[in-house]
């Protein structure tokens, strides 16, 4: 066997082994319902019967009574923004949960004045373990806050430009916005109670802003009354609860798994199956294929 042939064979074997390993290895991506680890949303999908959406284009089929949870960590295209606007104006409820992503792009598109601050909200006194896990215990009565006495956030931000009547939850008076990320309050940094959840009525539908999507991850739902809040949000929906997964942070593992899934779906079609068998036959029969100027080929 020549070196070249050995390397090619080795590369093929490695690719196959890697593909199997990647296919089998569990997902560890943030907020995904397939992820059973601390940062996944598998418990949400089980306890609240959330249907994951891989594209917002599917929103056109369901609107009235439905709730869409959108965590926009990737920018939305103009057509996706139109889909979201159509969903809300058609009577759907949009739960827009964002901290450092593209929530403001969605808010601009919907014509809502409120904005996600995009800067870290810290609470050095009222918190779970440290200031980056602030506790929230000021609530206005509403469907989302019913039965909720305390929430724990996780690396949250705050909302700005929210009307007084729209605020559903506020941080404590000891919280502040850490503009320079030094985890300490400085003179020029805003401090005091700040909105973290708000509700907005919009053209037949409803928009709920949550300044921390992390309350939906597996490790957070058991803290304080986070689970009650999640139940309340899920309870808004009279028909179906959807979680958009198309704008979640993607890892290389996710891309590769998707690629493998695409390859698998192609291979399971009649054409794909035939092509695979043909390629395998060619590879197997190649050594005995009659070669130019000789008999049956011998690579040695």
């Amino acid at each position, binding site marked *: 066997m020549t070196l070249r042939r050995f*390397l090619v064979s080795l590369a093929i074997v490695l690719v196959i082994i890697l593909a199997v390993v990647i296919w089998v290895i569990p997902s560890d991506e943030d907020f995904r319902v397939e992820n059973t680890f601390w940062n996944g949303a598998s418990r949400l999908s089980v306890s609240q019967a959330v249907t994951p959406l891989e594209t917002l284009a599917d929103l056109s089929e369901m609107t009235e009574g439905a709730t869409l949870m959108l965590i926009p960590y990737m920018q939305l295209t103009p057509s996706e923004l139109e889909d979201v606007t159509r969903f809300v104006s058609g009577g759907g409820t949009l739960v827009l949960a964002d901290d450092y992503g593209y929530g403001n792009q969605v808010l601009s598109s919907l014509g809502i004045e409120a904005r996600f601050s995009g800067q870290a909200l810290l609470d050095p*006194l009222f*918190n779970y*373990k*440290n200031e980056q896990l602030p506790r929230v215990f000021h609530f206005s009565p509403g469907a989302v806050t019913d039965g909720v006495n305390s929430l724990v956030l*996780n*690396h949250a931000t705050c909302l700005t430009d929210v009307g007084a009547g729209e605020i559903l939850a506020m941080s404590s008076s000891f919280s502040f916005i850490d503009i320079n990320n030094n985890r300490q309050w400085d003179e020029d940094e805003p401090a005091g109670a700040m909105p973290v959840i708000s509700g907005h009525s919009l053209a037949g539908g409803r928009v709920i802003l949550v300044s921390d999507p992390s309350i939906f991850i597996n490790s957070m739902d058991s803290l304080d009354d986070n689970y009650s809040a999640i139940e309340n949000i899920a309870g808004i929906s009279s028909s179906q609860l959807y979680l958009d997964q198309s704008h979640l942070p993607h890892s290389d593992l996710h891309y590769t798994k998707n690629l493998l899934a695409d390859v698998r779906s192609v291979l399971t079609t009649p054409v794909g199956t035939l092509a695979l068998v043909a390629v395998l036959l060619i590879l197997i029969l190649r050594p005995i294929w009659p070669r130019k100027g000789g008999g049956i080929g011998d690579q040695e």
Partner: protein
Amino acid sequence: MRKFTVVLSLLLAVAVLIPVLSLAAQPSHTPHENPATAGGSSSSLLLLIFHGDIYEVALGGRYQDAQDLLDKIKHANISDELKYIVDRFDALSHELFSDLDNLENLLDEISVLLEQYQMEEAQQQLEYARTVLENVDRMLDDGEMAVDAIGRRLYIGSYAPTSQLRQAYDRLKGILEQMRLLYRDFDARLGRLFLEYEDRVAVELIPTYLTIEATPESVFVGDSIVISGQLSSEDGPLADRSVTVLFEEKPEVVSTDEGGSYSTTIDIPYRYVTSVVFVARYTPAGDDIGVYGACESPRLTVDVSYYRTYLELSAPEVAYPGLPITVTGEISTTGDSIERNISLLLDNINLATVQARDRLEEELVIPDETVTGNHTLTASISAQQRYAGVSESLTIQISQFPLQVDVQAPSLILLPGEVNITGRVWHDSGPLGDAAVRVSFGESSSTQVITDADGNFEAVLEAPLRLSLVGPKRLMVGVEPVEPYYSSAAVEKWIVVINPVGISLTLLAFVSAGFVVYRRVTKWSTRIRAETPAGRPDLPWPTPLAPSPEPESGSGLTGIRSEILTAYLEGRRAIEKATGIHIEPYITLREFLKVVVTNVTAAVGQRFTELTRMAEVTLYSAREPDEGMAADARQQAADIKKEFNRDTA
């Protein structure tokens, strides 16, 4: 080869850089951390500031607000070393603020009681206030000690007086000292009230008396009643005095006439109870203070009448969504029969409101979306003036008619092809038409059809080529009726799927692979045979790992070397023949020696060891063997044979 290396290097470089690019695309902040493993940190400074704020609020007399703020502390992250003391301090503070609030109210109440010469009540409250004040004193002492302990835990003495932590601590201590002043104020005020009590108790008051009666003595709900009586003292009736008539904690103040009599009309509310209680009270005011004592009338109980309502409700035990049921009921009262408003509710959801006099009979349609299981049906007759209301409930079971589904499908199909499925849906009383039948085969192939008037359906599913060769595949048939009173039904069947194309191609692949392997093996054997010298009949296999010395086989050895090896082979053959142990292709000369030496006599073993050594020298050593060694080898071989011949003889 060079091109291949370049392409491989480029791929490796891209693979290394891709993670860097994806890292650059991540959000600027960490979206979250694992709360289970998150590091802990707490702010003692803010904790002291917050407690200072709370005590400042209390100092301003806003005790309830201070307690509300204390309730928020439970959300604070307090370090383990401070947690117990802070928790105890907060519990103490809660009690302290509650007692101070109570004390404030008590002292105000005592002042009023003393003003009104209600000496007995005043004395009781004074004693109670003294107990509360002693409690406050103790709690202030404990609170100061708790703050000292917090200071020690924080090593507050080591902080500069200008540091934020030290200032927050000093502020809290200062506020506690002010709380001590507040306590002294309360103490002084209570002392003054005690003195006032002593002064007033020395005065002799003229006792007063108050009577009370009702006209009529019993009433219906909604009617009015006249409450009257007389206020008098030892000196006679007391005119132009205010008397308070208390009914259900609601006071009504009336004045006495010249004869000391008072009278007021009170409406009995529509509360369907059997009796109500009235009491009248006189409290000296104006010039009467210090002259007359306060008094209270006996408690007057007045019987209240109303018409009771009875309802006997009946409904079917089982109901079906979308189908009506008839709810009946017998209504009776202790009064005359009148038209009544009746609400019919299913699990507190109002389904209908009807009017009936003596008998209720109403057809109710169970809502389509009602889930199966037990539900509560309630008929509620609302109260109507003298007629009390009544509510009766029944448990009814909401159920659905079961459906039967018969499915005919082939038990075996070939891919690619079509799966023809027919079936029938029916219920106890006949076929079910217009029902949606969803048929799915495997993961991707599904269709939906509607049953005809006879309940029959027919579906055709495509079964395209797949990777699988042969195996069972699940056929699911689900029936969704239009009518809510029928239950859904599902049938599962397994169909064996055979993929002849796949099987053929796989067989072809295996045959091809077998052919290739066969050719390879044949070619390899041929080559080995061609490379192996002929004339080794005594060795069954070529010996690539441990070449057995074969001097006759044309291995290139000649002369003395050949003679030595020939002698070795003769000796070895004799041993093999005698012991039955034969050398294998993968065994070295020395390994063979080790095996056989234990199976022969010591003399033979010694000779064969020497013979093996000479064969190894001949085969592997650069030293040229001499004639002496060859003679020695021949001798050893001859001796070995002789030994065996002798043994045989």
